[in-house]
């Protein structure tokens, strides 16, 4: 198409003043892609280990959570594994709440500036509260 390369581009990230709606939108993409790229492989590893028997399951636990005496590699990955699992649980709650926000926006509601900002904040704070509640339920 003639002149297509010279058309004006729509303004991108750099010209906007950051606001809660923008942050939630970016977090929705980060959390969703994190769940897809890290969460789903971990889910498959977990199912594969369960289907392979107690030894494979013990291997998974030692890499991702408990470590193993004398293994520096597993000492490192077990810390990373804990960070990844806490991060994934946060990503799930963030993506869930942000997704529910999308459903509301889909029906055309919640675009008034103040209401929109309030719900964006509720998504961000709510995901942290739910993550904390989840780990309290698991560990306590």
């Amino acid at each position, binding site marked *: 198409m003639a002149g297509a390369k010279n058309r004006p581009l729509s303004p991108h990230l750099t010209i906007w003043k950051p606001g809660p709606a923008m942050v939630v939108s970016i977090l929705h993409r980060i959390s969703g892609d994190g*769940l897809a790229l890290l969460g789903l492989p971990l889910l498959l590893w977990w199912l594969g280990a*369960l289907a392979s028997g107690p030894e494979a399951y013990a291997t998974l636990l030692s890499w991702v959570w408990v470590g193993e005496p004398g293994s520096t590699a597993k000492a490192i990955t077990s810390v990373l594994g804990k960070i990844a699992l806490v991060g994934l649980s946060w990503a799930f709650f963030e993506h869930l709440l942000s997704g529910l926000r999308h459903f509301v926006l889909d029906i055309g509601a919640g675009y008034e500036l103040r209401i929109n900002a309030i719900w964006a904040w509720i998504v961000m704070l709510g995901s942290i509260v739910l993550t904390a509640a989840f780990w309290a339920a698991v560990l306590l």
Partner: protein
Amino acid sequence: MGEGTSIGKVRGTGSAHSGSHHWLLQRFTAIANLGLVGWLVVTFALLPSFSFVSVHEWIVRPLPGIAIALLIVSTFWHAKLGLQVLIEDYVHEAANKFACIAALNLAIFGGAGFGLFCIIRLALGGA
């Protein structure tokens, strides 16, 4: 496509007639994920422990098996739709975009197939 008038230049370059289907599927699978992954997270919180015996005893039962199988389908489907948008947004060169989306489809079907095989094996007492 026309060469001359303004309207001639844009005629025929409109809707791809497939976007709304993608959009709707993303919502449908999101609703399924809400229920199924929500159930899995609550189950994780309620499991007595994450030992092999405790998790295995739970997952070989019929209802958890069916729910996990459905969860694999809905989460991998939803992830495919989401990652496809990621690729379309950030990979601009047509051939690279095609290669990425092709690889994504292979990974999604491969991953979901592996997950379903695992849960069927567990449910039928193979492990």
